[in-house]
């Protein structure tokens, strides 16, 4: 079933054999089409999640309650914003979207190892999103934060089906990702073209391999925890209920054991994208390839043993807190290797500052900003002052909403010509970058100040003193929203009237296999496995 290659032996690119109409999409077993479906779904999700955050910032623009009177609704907005962005925007865009599109292309495979399972993964994701939106609409919604801590999330304090729908949504989305991870790992391990050893794989493939292993190991723990919460809520178990000998803190351990690797699941694919973009536009191979590959593996591995830095104030032994401080700080080392390696890649290069490269450079700088506030938070002593304040919100939005999003946008502008066969308008692209860059910094940088001054998270209204920076932050949100709209305009404009894109629009720096196939990439590619073995003549 996976050998679509065996049957077709045309030797030239075309849509021969491609199904037509809605069946092409609903029943798709084609990695490119499924990748496109994921990207479209991610775009829908980012608009939904973005509208939620827009509403939050609108309310927080001034002290007092202006637009939202139902405070449960506010908590539901906060919760849904987090879930939608994490599970239905960032992950589908990077992993489902770029992963599906470019893993087979880059390794010389005709498709994924399990094309039908690939299809299931996508539609499970859609079901997951629908379940999440349903949860917001029933029984007052889940107002628990994306972290779903009991007792607030148990049946006593969230009676009704909303949290159950949210749990189901995450189960389904988790299943989608686990199946996807199995697919990706199998594909990467078994289907590389001959000659493409692990140490000759593109770094994006390394990034996806590490990410897939993180998914494989972390998501099942979330599934277990969610099941326990579901049975606590509905079947009388007491995993997290003190009355039955359980412990609400146990949930936190399980959730964050998943939750911390989850943030690396969101950023490691972006690391892969940045390596490709930086290398392409500097016209140089990535500096220190092995260091880069193993740094990603190290980050992934260490990411599994630092979870309790999210729990420094629950009350546990100082020795244990000390361990988690030190382990968390260790991650800075492989991360630093990557930052410096990217800079060293650019050093001596011949850099063209096209839109993908602007986003990649923005990523590098802003990820460092987010990363250093992470070092602050990692130190449990100081974290007492910052836990559950806007400082934490500033930190994770810098590394996710800015860095991961920039990684997505960088990859999008980079690969869009390959996916749709048309060139976007470069001037518009640059304008969009700068508008976004300005917007997100005005949006999130002041939140560091709010946090230092003591403003807590997840509140719909705040003491007057916090009004100043909140106002500035909201302006930044509106600018970012405008930048997002400009992005969608560029996408539509390109699809309608963009110039035809060559196989390789980026020049000598684009050296991976996807640039060898035409733009747009044909329905079937690599029907013949490319020979990547080093030739004696080379």
């Amino acid at each position: 079933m996976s050998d679509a290659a065996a049957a077709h032996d045309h030797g030239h690119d075309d849509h021969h054999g491609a199904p037509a109409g809605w069946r092409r999409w609903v029943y798709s077993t084609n990695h490119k089409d499924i990748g496109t479906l994921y990207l479209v779904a991610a775009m829908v999700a980012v608009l939904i999640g973005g509208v939620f955050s827009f509403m939050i910032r609108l309310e927080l623009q001034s002290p007092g309650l202006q637009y939202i009177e139902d405070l449960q609704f506010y908590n539901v907005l906060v919760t849904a914003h987090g879930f939608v962005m994490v599970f239905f925007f960032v992950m589908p865009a990077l992993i489902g979207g770029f992963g599906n599109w470019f893993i087979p292309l880059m390794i010389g495979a005709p498709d994924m190892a399990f094309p039908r399972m690939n299809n299931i993964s996508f539609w499970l994701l859609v079901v997951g999103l629908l379940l999440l939106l349903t949860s917001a609409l029933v029984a007052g919604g889940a107002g628990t934060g994306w972290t779903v801590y009991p007792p607030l999330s148990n049946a006593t304090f969230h009676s009704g089906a909303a949290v159950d729908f949210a749990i189901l949504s995450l189960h389904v989305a988790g299943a989608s990702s686990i199946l996807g991870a199995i697919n990706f790992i199998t594909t990467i391990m078994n289907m590389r073209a001959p000659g493409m050893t692990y140490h000759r794989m593109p770094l994006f493939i390394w990034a996806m391999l590490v990410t897939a292993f993180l998914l494989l190991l972390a998501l099942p723990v979330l599934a277990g925890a969610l099941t326990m919460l579901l049975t606590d809520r509905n079947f009388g178990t007491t995993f997290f209920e003190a009355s039955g000998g359980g412990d609400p803190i146990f949930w936190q351990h399980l959730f964050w054991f998943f939750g911390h690797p989850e943030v690396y699941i969101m950023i490691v694919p972006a690391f892969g994208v940045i390596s490709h973009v930086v290398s392409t536009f500097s016209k140089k191979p990535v500096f220190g390839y092995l260091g880069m590959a193993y740094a990603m593996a190290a980050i992934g591995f260490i990411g599994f043993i630092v979870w309790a830095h999210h729990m420094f104030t629950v009350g546990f032994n100082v020795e244990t807190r000390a361990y988690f401080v030190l382990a968390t700080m260790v991650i800075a080392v492989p991360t630093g290797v990557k930052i410096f390696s990217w800079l060293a890649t650019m050093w001596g290069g011949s850099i063209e500052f096209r839109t993908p490269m602007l986003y990649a450079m923005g990523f590098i700088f802003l990820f460092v900003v987010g990363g250093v506030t992470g070092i602050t938070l990692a130190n449990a002593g100081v974290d007492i002052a910052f836990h559950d304040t806007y400082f934490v919100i500033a930190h994770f939005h810098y590394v996710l909403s800015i860095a991961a999003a920039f990684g997505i946008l960088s990859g999008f502008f980079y690969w869009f010509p390959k996916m749709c066969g048309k060139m976007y308008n470069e001037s518009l692209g640059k304008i969009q970058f700068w508008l976004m860059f300005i917007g997100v910094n005005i949006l999130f940088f002041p939140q560091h100040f709010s946090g230092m001054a003591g403003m807590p998270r997840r509140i719909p209204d705040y003491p007057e003193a916090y009004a100043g920076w909140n106002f500035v932050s909201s302006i930044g949100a509106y600018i970012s929203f405008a930048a997002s709209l400009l992005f969608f305009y560029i996408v539509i404009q390109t699809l309608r009237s963009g110039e035809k894109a060559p196989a390789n629009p980026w020049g000598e720096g684009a050296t991976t296999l996807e640039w060898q196939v035409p733009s747009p990439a044909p329905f079937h590619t690599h029907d013949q496995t490319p020979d990547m073995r080093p030739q004696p003549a080379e």
Partner: protein
Amino acid sequence: MVAVFAVGLFSSAGAMAQQPHPWQMNFQKAATPVMEEIIWFHNWLLVIEIAIVILVLALMLYIAIKFNAKANPVPSKTTHNAPLEVIWTVVPIIILVVIAVPSMKLLFFMDKAQDPEMTLKVIGNQWFWSYEYPDHGNFTFDANLTQKEDLPDDKKSLYLLEVDNHVVLPADTSIRLLFTANDVLHNWAIPSFGVKMDTVPGRINEAWIEVSSKHMGTYYGQCSELCGVNHGYMPIAVDIVSKAEFAAWVEKAKEEFARVDEPAVDVARIGARGTTAGR
């Protein structure tokens, strides 16, 4: 009532109230040795972090100028430089070790058990805090948010910080805080004290503070763990007063506030070994 008494006391004494200020960019002023250490460590760490950010920015600006396609049409082929790779692995490790040392000191300093002279029990509820004074007659009271309309005009900035009953504590006294909750997770936090502790139903957490008489005044904090719809509406207010004022307040409070049930049985009759310490 007691709050009015406390506030009246302070306006005459001119003691400070520690609340956030508009456009504030740094921590609220420290009132405990723990918070002073936190502020010191944070500022020290920030210098290192800013240096790192500036370094990366400077390198990127240099690269943008020196290695753009116009300035450098022929890219180099360098992909390795072992000494450089060693440096940028080892130097961060050194920096992290340098950070870890004061960090551990701070962490263990905060954890050191003190010989507490009194205990305050803090209980989180949806959506207000209750307090018990087990060593002072075991009275208890709730602290509810003061609504905006009930605040005097010149104190509207205290909306979402002010409550009807302040916690009153003596200065220059080692105070043990015990935390628990009656329903869901809450978190009791006072920025100036450097205290932030989850209150977990079914268990007790512990922290300690000592505020010197140089820092007497009123301090505000807010619940710091999402606990339902009114999570943003259950703040905390603590008055640090002199020992004499505290003793006077305790007498008033014993009369005004309800008692947590007292131990009712005469211990001697049951034949416990050892001694019993006073209430």
